[in-house]
């Protein structure tokens, strides 16, 4: 290692620490605030609470008379998992098809999805709500999964960009060997697209996890609330509960990230096939 490289490494780490700090500090603030003993953000000394306790977390999970956090949590988990699985599946399939198949109307579909994504979405919320009343899907967690999953393929362009960079030569080789298109998709391209699948899964999990407009619209019963809706319904004096709830809401996504992280980087270039 020469001197220049050493210097380079040094600055890289300085940058990394700086960036880690920028991202971590507000999170840290929120985490520590949730352990605040007094329960009010205004009794802090500067950025951080004066004294800490586990009380708010205990309260969050035990005092469920008005605000049933555990219940909200499982509702959200159900919705997010459901829409993550179905949504990822649909998105990847759409992206792959759009990238690999030539058929009539392909470019039209590409252009129109591009344009459709631009419409201010909350204007359509009224329509979604009314539609769901007609289908009788108000107050059903399944109704939300349906909407999230159905909306997920709209963002397929990102994934399509990825498939576009996987060499088609691989497909053609497999085709000569007699593989059907379905087999080429499942056996060859899916394993290669792992980083993309992870990304898609992560985003389609996070979206329902943190969205509060749709569940607010479609779930009327307090028992069916998701965490985001529940937290927004908290009284303004319940700050510590809010902070504790917000910290805990981030946990599953962090866990999911650590479960999936090893799949994020072994893409094609490090994989078995080289072009």
């Amino acid at each position, binding site marked *: 290692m020469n001197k220049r490289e050493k210097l380079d490494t040094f600055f890289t780490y300085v940058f990394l620490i700086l960036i880690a700090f920028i991202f971590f500090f507000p999170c840290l603030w929120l985490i520590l605030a949730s352990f605040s003993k007094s329960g009010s953000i205004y009794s802090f000394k500067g950025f951080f609470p004066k004294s800490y306790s586990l009380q708010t977390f205990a309260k969050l999970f035990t005092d469920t008379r008005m605000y049933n956090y555990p219940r909200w949590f499982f509702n959200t988990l159900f919705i997010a998992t459901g829409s993550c699985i179905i949504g990822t599946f649909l998105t990847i399939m759409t992206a792959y098809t759009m990238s690999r198949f030539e058929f009539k109307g392909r470019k039209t579909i590409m252009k129109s999805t591009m344009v459709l994504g631009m419409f201010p979405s909350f204007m359509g919320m009224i329509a979604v*709500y009314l539609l769901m009343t007609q289908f009788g899907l108000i107050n059903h967690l399944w109704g939300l999964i349906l909407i999230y999953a159905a909306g997920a393929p709209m963002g397929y362009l990102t994934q399509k960009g990825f498939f576009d960079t996987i060499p088609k030569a691989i497909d053609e080789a497999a085709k000569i060997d007699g593989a059907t298109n379905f087999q080429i998709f499942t056996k060859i391209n899916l394993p290669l697209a792992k980083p993309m699948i992870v990304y898609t899964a992560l985003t389609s999990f996070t979206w329902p996890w943190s969205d509060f407009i749709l569940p607010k619209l479609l779930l009327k*019963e307090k*028992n069916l609330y998701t965490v985001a809706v529940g937290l927004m319904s908290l009284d303004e004096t319940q700050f510590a509960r809010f902070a504790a709830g917000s910290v805990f809401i981030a946990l599953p996504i962090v866990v999911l990230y650590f479960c999936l992280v090893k799949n994020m980087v072994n893409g094609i270039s490090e994989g078995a096939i080289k072009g």
Partner: protein
Amino acid sequence: MKRKLVAMLLLSSMLLTTVGCAKKGESVNADKGKGAAVFDGKIEKNVTIHVLENDTAIEKGYFKELIEAFNEKYKSKGIKAVDANMDQHSDLAKDGPYGYGPDVIYQANDVIMKYAKGKHILPLPVEQFDCYKQVPKVAWKAYETKVDGKTYTCGVPVNVQAPMLYYRKDLLPADWKEKWDENKDNIPDMVQSWKKMYQFSVERHKEDSTKYGYMKSINDMYFTSGFLFSYGGYIFGKNNTDTSDVGLSAKNSAKGARVVNQLASVMNEDCIDDTITTNAYSKLGDGSYFSTISTPDVYSTFVEELEKNYTGMSKSEAEKKAKENLVMTTLPTLPASGDLTDNSTKEIACKSMGGVNAYAISSYTKAPNASLLFVKFATEYKMIQKRAEMLGIAPARKDVAEKVGGVSKQIYKNLDNNDIVLMPSISAVSQIWTPGQTFFTDIAKDAYRKDSEKKYKEIGDYQKGLKEMCKQIEDAITTLK
């Protein structure tokens, strides 16, 4: 193919005109029986009534007692009341028509009357109610609506919401009886007059720079607009019905705006945004603030916060002490001159914006008669009294207000005297909040601008600011029409 489609469309449009005519004919006939005909006295059997109460009533356990008492009484008839288990702010107009709304709702008059417009709530036979004579006319009036020349009443008033002054008795200076009780009525002067409150705030802050006297976020239109009303301002003309006349700048209301600015100057920058609204509970508790304004229903939250600061004693002792030291009272008087710093002595009453909360019955209920039964039960003397005791609210019933006494009685009196200006029951009221909030933010901010940058120097500047705000509200209402 295209031609075919056009033909089909034409055909269908022709079809629909004939169908349309037929349907129109029907509707004329069906329109005859109207009014609250559904209240035929035939009580529905084996029904469940979904009641949407406010969060405080649920949290403090009052609501549970109410439905338990009701269910006990009507068990034999098979009527059961349950918690609707919905957000207290959910929109009946949106949920009701599709069958997702509650049967009975409890809300403030502006909300309920918004529903009345689209007939989402039923007109009630209010004369039948046992509270009819006990509730003041103004409160009933807030729930009246005119349809085809007839007047209907759509809600049964339960309590009155109005801003109250909260202060800590134990933070008064030790010698207050000598120095701060000029009229010797054994009530501190600063909670009787804004002028004295102003002086006290200056003094308290001077002694210790971390301590303040009166603190409140100025940008809160609901609490701050009262200062405009006190000097002749109003929201809409003709008893809050004429939206073409926005009167927040009427008469001497600029004086009120100046009072607001003067009060802001004895606080700190926190009054510019909503910091104080959220931190008042803990700051009053730890003694940083001496007093603030809020509605009566948060009394218990203040008490809880105060309790936390009384360490070194048992919980019940701390609670007792907190209740003793935390005083809730009606608003102090204002100087007629509109200047908190001069020597004039003439005082006028401080008006405030307020609301009347009431029960109403959804038009989409399957059991209107049973719901009516519930509303009757919930507004009886016994239940209202319990409500007042458990929640510390000010009842709209005269007999209960007399019985409970104290603040409730005062609020009732203020309502009767028109010192509480009820929120308009028309939808245009939603246009006043943001312009109002912006104006008051500007006034509060002005107290902290450098002298050279100050926008509001003379009374005329306030007048101009108010006029602009009114113009903004008018524009918002008329342009979008």
